[in-house]
């Protein structure tokens, strides 16, 4: 079983990397971008039957810093 964890900065938390990417996109001539927020994708290969709670616990204890980050879990059952 596979799961994907998306870790993103909470709304309102300044994202200097996102800003720099935004500027670089504008520098390349892409004018239609209004905002860029950078985050992380973490792929987990899990034993079958790993519960949602367990994955959320992994996120809270290590994968995300919940002071500044949110996380979203996407399970890929048959992957």
């Amino acid at each position, binding site marked *: 079983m596979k799961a994907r964890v998306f870790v993103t900065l909470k709304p309102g*938390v*300044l994202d*200097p*990397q996102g800003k*720099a990417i935004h500027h670089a996109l504008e520098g390349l001539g892409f004018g239609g971008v209004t905002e860029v927020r950078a985050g992380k994708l973490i792929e987990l290969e899990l034993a079958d039957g790993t519960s949602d709670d367990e994955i959320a616990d992994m996120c809270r*204890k*290590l*994968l995300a*810093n919940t*002071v*500044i980050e949110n996380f979203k879990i996407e399970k890929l059952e048959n992957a």
Partner: protein
Amino acid sequence: MMSAVLVFPGSNCDRDLAVAIEQVTGRAPAMVWHRESELPEGTDFIAIPGGFSYGDYLRSGAMAARSPIMRAVSDAAGRGVPVLGICNGFQVLTEAGLLPGALMRNAGLNFVCRPVGLKVENSQSIFTSAYRAGEEISIPVAHHDGNYQADAETLDRLESEGRVAFRYTGEVNGSARSIAGIINAQGNVLGMMPHPERALETAHGNTDGRRLFEGLLEAVS
């Protein structure tokens, strides 16, 4: 004073910190590898050095904060043992939940490496008692992730409880309210981005960092 300096893979200020502690206290600290689960018996000061523990993987300080020795540090901190985290050590302390907030990428995205002006906001703590309140000192910084952030409520609490130890006197890294160092509620854990161990002797060009260790020694002994 029986000091311990933690060493993680990627720590690079551990030896400078050990030299600083030995110079001021007259006793070499125990160097404690991150895999240890206990601190040496009688440790009465714990220092977490700067560097790039675990190559800053995941988030600065994130992996180090979950290493076995940090459980012992957390227990010791709970018992009132003074803990000082410098630079990466500050990041480790926030990741371990021993200090509030988080240290994010510098607002300008640049690695900042230069002496910076600091205002001593609180001279009553065990770490800052050798400074005068409001005094301006100069201590070097060297970091990429020193942008201190916390929610407004936490920042207000830190300020009202006198837990902001040091504030930058100019723009350095985008930190909320120019915070350079904070103390925990109990008053025995200090995290700071500037490196006092790099301003210890005249050969360093400045000795403003020395009094932090001197004040601590006096407070502990």
